[in-house]
């Protein structure tokens, strides 16, 4: 250093050593930039890979394989008439008909020795529904397309067990198989047979849980945010509230599940695995998120608004509820939607409060045992039956679509209503 200072000749930047050194530094620069680019691309690639895997498997879950079955209804039902199974007594008339037996007979007549386990467990229900929708079917010979058993479904879509593959090959030769849209998946409930499962029950459970969560977490979160930001004086109690909220926002979700188990189920004796308890537990988890988002939104309302309102004689409560809150509401709503999206995807706390049972029907009320969409995904992912793989991915697609929709709504709200002061 001291030598260089004494040396009057300036650094020769065009000299070989310096040029080399600069080249080396520029190379390092490029490498560093490339590393950054690589990091971003790796994350993106992972996301793309995940989504494509789910799409690739899940889209098949919305389809089902159907088999053509000829029903000679006049012979099978001993000449039942269309009027007998329509009108108000249709249900009772159909119940007395032994439709499962009729279906079994029809399949047996047509497919002989391979007819065993050809149809899914819900097939008789499908026939029943078809007759209910269109009673005139029963007066003639009909070819109905019915969903096949999950083993054959898997074999027809991809590759299954050798035995199922053989059956499928034989049936395909007769042109007796086709692919149809799986309405059962959107309207049904959990079942033991993957070709008969549906997500409606889990989805309804999720909606009910979310309704409870929103009803509790939103008002409490907004009020707490207003108090902390507008009124709270700086004292021990306020500090404790702030520490609690910041800490609650970072507590692992499974801990909230343990709290729900110990307090709501064990102490208060609320009904196990109900939407009520699930909603309460998730509300405790979502509330701090709403408080933090709400405080930021309230903070961004400029003080001049408050001063102006106070200046024309508004009371402190009027200032906040007439002026600050309406202006902060878009920001609060954005935070609420993001918090709700997080709650919708949450699984662990719901497992803790018992939402892991097999529930084959949609819940009727808030105290009924229910399951939720993410829990249903977890339960199906645990099944050994190969047919559940595509159903799990299909349920994931439904969940992701909803989360994406909620987040898009939040972004829209933010862009549409947010005021830059």
């Amino acid at each position, binding site marked *: 250093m001291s030598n260089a200072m004494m040396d009057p000749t300036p650094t020769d930047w065009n000299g070989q050593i310096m040029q080399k050194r600069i080249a080396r*530094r*520029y190379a*390092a*620069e490029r490498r*560093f*930039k490339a*590393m*950054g*680019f690589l*990091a*971003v691309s790796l*994350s993106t690639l*992972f*996301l793309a890979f*995940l989504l494509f*895997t789910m799409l690739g498997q899940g889209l098949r879950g919305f389809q089902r394989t159907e088999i053509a079955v000829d029903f000679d209804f006049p012979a099978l039902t001993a000449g039942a008439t269309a009027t007998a199974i329509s009108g108000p007594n249709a249900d009772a008339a159909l119940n007395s008909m032994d439709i499962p037996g009729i279906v079994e007979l029809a399949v047996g007549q047509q497919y002989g020795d391979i007819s065993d386990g050809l149809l899914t467990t819900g097939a008789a229900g499908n026939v029943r529904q078809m007759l209910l929708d269109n009673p005139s079917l029963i007066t003639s010979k009909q070819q109905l397309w019915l969903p096949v058993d999950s083993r054959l479904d898997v074999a027809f879509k991809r590759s299954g067990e050798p035995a199922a593959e053989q059956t499928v090959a034989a049936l395909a030769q007769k042109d007796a198989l086709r692919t149809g849209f799986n309405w059962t998946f959107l309207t049904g409930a959990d079942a033991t047979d993957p070709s008969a499962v549906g997500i409606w029950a889990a989805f309804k459970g999720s909606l009910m849980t979310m309704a409870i969560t929103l009803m509790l977490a939103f008002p409490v979160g907004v*009020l*707490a945010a207003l*108090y*902390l930001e507008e*009124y*709270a004086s700086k004292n021990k109690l306020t500090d404790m*509230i702030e520490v*609690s909220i910041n*800490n*609650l926002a*970072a*507590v*692992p*979700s*499974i*801990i909230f599940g*343990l*709290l729900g*188990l*110990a307090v709501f189920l064990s102490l208060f004796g609320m009904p196990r695995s109900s939407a009520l308890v699930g909603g309460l537990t998730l509300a405790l988890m979502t*509330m*701090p998120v709403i408080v933090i988002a709400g405080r930021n939104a309230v903070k961004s309302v400029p003080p001049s608004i408050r001063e102006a309102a106070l200046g024309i004689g508004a*009371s402190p*409560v009027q200032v906040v*509820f007439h002026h600050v809150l309406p202006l902060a509401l878009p920001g609060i709503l954005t935070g609420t939607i993001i918090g709700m*999206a*997080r709650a*919708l*995807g*949450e*699984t*662990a706390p719901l*497992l*803790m409060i018992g939402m892991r049972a097999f529930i084959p029907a949609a819940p009727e009320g808030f105290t009924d045992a229910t399951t939720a969409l*993410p829990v249903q*995904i*977890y339960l199906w*992912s645990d099944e050994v039956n190969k047919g559940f*793989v595509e159903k*799990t991915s299909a349920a*994931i697609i439904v969940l*992701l679509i909803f*989360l994406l929709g909620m*987040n898009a709504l939040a972004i829209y709200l933010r862009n549409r209503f947010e005021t830059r002061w």
Partner: protein
Amino acid sequence: MTGTALLFLVLGLGLIGWIAGRARAAAFVRSAKGGPRGTVNSLPYYHGWFVAICAIAPALIFMFIWQSISPSLVTNMVLSAPAAADLPQEGFARAAILSEARAIAQGFQATAFQDGSEKLVPLYEGALSYYKWIGVAATVLLLFAGGAFAFTRIKPDFRARSKVERVVMFGLLVASLIAILTTLGIFASLIFESWRFFSMVSPFEFLFGTEWNPKSVVTPGADNGYGAIPLFWGTIFIGAIIAMIVAIPLGLMSAIFLTQYASASVRKWMKPILEILAGVPTVVYGYFAALTVAPAVRDFAVMLGVSNAASDNALAAGIVMGVMIIPLVSSMSDDSIAAVPSAMRDGSLAMGATKSETIKQVLLPAALPGVVGGILLAVSRAIGETMIVVMAAGYTANLTANPFATITTITVQIVALLTGDQDFGSPHTLAAFALGLALFVTTFFLNYVALRVVKKYREAYE
């Protein structure tokens, strides 16, 4: 009349009170001399709110209290009847018969299984409806009393607004206190259940034992298989080591690239994509890890010549968890790099340093506390993560540093211990709470330190 119907009745009557109060105040306004507002202190609707609050609040509080005390009143009434005299004195059988009779009377259960519960059903029905109607009558009475009291208070110079605002402020304070209540509830329930657990299993075994194989019947003093060291190690190995090896370089470099190199349009597209990564539910990550990543990792291990690679290996869970954490590390680093005064950056660039030299030698050292805080938060998030490890990591406790082996974590074991119809007092259930306490204390500590570090760092540059 059910509770919901009563609730709606109370709210409906409250609405009527609101309308009546407002109308009375409005009449004062009209009749007042000297201008349209006259000398009336508050706007009419404040009077309406005053009446509604006075009517509803006591009724609701009474309903809540009645809900919690009426069951024991009902039981006392049933027990005082002569038919209850020949109940078994022994506590457990007695309670079973009583609860079954009650369930039948309430319509939750159709038939009786216990001996002697059948004849208590009519008694229960009588007692339930007796106390229910007392409750309804008292609620409605309170409501009308409160409403009438408030209604007579309405005068032109009555300060309804300040009264209503005092109630609003009280409501705001109560809403804020719920956060403290929740924290206390978590603390109390975890500590209470852990206390019960440690009265069965010694804390020494729990904290320092190396064998995790929990027995459902414990013998005090003996080794019961509740040594949690393998779980602590597994949690640290997956959450704090493997996941961080993935998340720190990727997250940090992503933040650097997006803030320092990327053009505005690239940043506009890439940031939301990273945020999507944070918004994907963990159950989806878990399924992806179990279905796609774990078999790939095992095949890779077999290719490397690791013969005992498990299909539920720690590496797959750790990698996927790391990817999940990337957005968190990235956004925290982003914030702390942005908080470095631009004078430092400009100075370095002016001296002729390249961008990467500026980042590595000026920005990152200056932003280090913030970055470290972010990483601590990320670790706390990772060790509390449940679904990825439940679905992709194993259930067998293993004290090993082999990433291809099965390793279990605290959260996995909490889920495993609470699976099935466990009785609430069993050591399995209580052990889950002890593990939960360990997890809570660790994450609390990490979060506290992280927030302190980040706050201190921000103050240093402000």
